[in-house]
């Protein structure tokens, strides 16, 4: 299998706080990897390091074999290949749904307005938001916003999508529509890294589940193994805590 992202001995400090303490992880093309773990374990930080929203302190990240930390590597290029979907949606407030999906294509990929609009429209329809192309973000519900955000990321034709808790900010009745969208993308074979607290979703959709604890990957395996036969004590404890909550 072709290696898409290789993370090697990644460390990240925030001042004196050592947050990532040597993470090693490889994502292959077409793979869906979910990252689980307790709050503060460094999941978001890891994800944000992958597209350089945070700069790693040491270690290396390769994207399709090239180190993204080298000075020659174009960050702007990297980011067009890596889509990111945020917990808080972060739709551009001054733009409607369609424009949200168009702006990056025109500005960064230099596509024509017309072409960009067509691609944007296709993606909005794909996530079931075609009817809302002219709606501004504040006219949309949380679930609708998140679907537009996914369409925005898709419009850049990324090789890989990064999701940071895409459903955590949603009212329970809207979680389903967003997860359904992500499932459909997984079925299409899009490479995805998803940080989530939705264990059922992680079990269904992922090829591999990564359990993070205190800045390192504590366990990494297929969903069946992780959820049914966890090897590590801290994985067991985490899963037990999660199950008790629900």
């Amino acid at each position, binding site marked *: 299998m072709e290696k898409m992202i290789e993370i090697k001995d990644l460390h990240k400090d925030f001042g004196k706080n050592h947050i990532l303490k040597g993470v090693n992880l490889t994502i292959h093309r077409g793979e869906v990897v979910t990252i689980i773990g307790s709050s503060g374990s460094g999941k978001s930080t890891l994800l944000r390091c992958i597209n350089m*929203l945070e700069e790693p302190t040491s270690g290396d990240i390769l994207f399709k074999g090239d180190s993204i930390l080298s000075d020659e590597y174009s960050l702007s290029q990297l980011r*067009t290949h890596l*889509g990111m979907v945020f917990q808080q949606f*972060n739709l551009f407030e001054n733009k409607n749904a369609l424009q949200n999906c168009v702006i990056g294509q025109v500005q960064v990929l230099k596509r024509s307005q017309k072409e960009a609009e067509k691609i944007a429209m296709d993606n909005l329809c794909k996530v079931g938001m075609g*009817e809302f192309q*002219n709606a501004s973000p*504040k*006219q949309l*519900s949380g679930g609708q916003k998140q679907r537009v955000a996914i369409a925005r990321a898709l419009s850049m034709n990324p090789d890989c999508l990064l999701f940071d808790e895409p459903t955590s900010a949603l009212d329970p009745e809207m979680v389903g529509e967003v997860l359904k969208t992500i499932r459909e993308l997984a079925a299409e074979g899009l490479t995805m890294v998803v940080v989530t607290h939705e264990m059922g979703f992680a079990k269904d959709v992922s090829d591999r589940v990564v359990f993070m604890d205190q800045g390192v990957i504590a366990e990494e395996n297929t969903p069946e193994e992780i959820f049914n036969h966890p090897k590590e004590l801290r994985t067991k404890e985490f899963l037990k805590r999660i199950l008790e909550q629900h």
Partner: protein
Amino acid sequence: MKKWMTWLFAFLLIFPALTWGNSEATAETNDEDLFRVGMEAGYPPFNWTQQTDKNGAVPIDGQKEYAGGYDVEIARKVAEGLGKKLVIVKISWDGLAPALTSGKIDAIIAGMSPTEERKKAIDFSEAYHHAELVMMVKKGSPFEEARSLADFEGAKITGQLGTLHYDAIDQIPGVQKELAMDDFPAMRVALESGVIDGYVSENVEGLTARKINPNFVMVQFDEGKGFELSEADSTVAIGLRKGSPLTEPINEVLGNISREQREEIMATAIEQQPGAEDDATGGFFFWVKKIVEENGVMFLRGAGMTLLISLIGTVLGTAIGMAIGMFRTIPTPKKAGKRGLFNFLNTLFSIYIEVFRGTPMIVQSMVIYYGAAQAFGININRTIAAIIIVSINTGAYMTEIVRGGIFAVDKGQFEAAQAIGMTHYQTMRHIVVPQVIRNILPATGNEFVINIKDTSVLNVIAVSELFFQAKTVSGANFRFFETFSVVCVIYFVMTFAVTQILRRIEKKLDGPGHYEPYGNQMQVQKPETID
């Protein structure tokens, strides 16, 4: 001049030059053939503003109005004597001395008395008018023929409250000093009705009163038998720059105008002064109507100037604020050289903000307009100077407002833009700035309204905005309440209109709270709005 002051001046000058770049000197500078005279054009009968060139009034520099009056006639004679062309510059009282010392004008002929205080800053010519205290009495009264103060023994005399006229009554032996009165119309009524035997006045007012009411007689005293007045109180002279070469020739010209000629000029001025033919009766609405009819155009011009300056000033100021605000969002460069420049500019901007927020606009106007001319000989067109002053003043405030506006844009907006590969510039241009504009719109509107009101201080640099025009009109008709009521309404209409327009824009930008998807509504779920 102290070194830091030079730097301050340099900063104040370079900055507008950078942001405006259009500070060419106007033709009014150092023109040897011109005799530029400053006056308020709002202190009849010495000087006033009128709409036409009737009675040989002189056009006011850079305006559509004309100046007339005793001062204008004297100025005309002086200019003739000097062989120069007369230019009348209309400047508010406080701006006269700075305009003279900075070389914007050559002389002040504005009914100004040569007090000791003023003599410290400027020179004065010989007096061109002697105020003389007189006594107004009724025709046929026993005092009609009086020639000396002693003749008023036992007379019931009053004068205007708080003036030297009233104080001077004490010089009359055995007088019956009555309570002081508020204004001349009141004293005239009292005299007419016989409540008093006379009131103390000046020859100028006396001539006016005698003209209005032929029943009045003006008693002028014989030499040495009248009221004693200090020279500073009783004379009016031409203000000139210290050591001005014009002093000698001007004194010569003035010496050739005889006392009789001067009195005749004054009498003519009194006759021609605006409102001289009006009677003082008539209520509030009569006067409002009259003021609107006679001065409406002038007010509208003033309002136009006010709007022009505050609109351009607000727009440019907002642009300055945006530029600096955006500059401050640029991440600190890593290279040492770039970082040095970056830090230098940041410090410069901080100084700019502190200086302009920490000083009144009237002071800034003085420094930039007159100070620049005095220190560096730089002359800027008045209106442009005014726009620059309002712009950089507004800019200082807007920088902070923009900072708040950027701060209010969610951090997620920057990250989302970054995450799809947009550069800092693209992010700013397409995502942040539009949101900042929306955020700062209310505060910008506020600045605009403040500017409309604050431009009233610009009359010190001879900009005829609305407030200055109002002062001119009320100075001529003495109808302060009615005049300023009219002006108040104009100000209110302007600010109210601006506020309403901005509110509309805000609403438009915000759009409706709900979205109706097009197409068959039966099939789509209705969006819910979460806030």
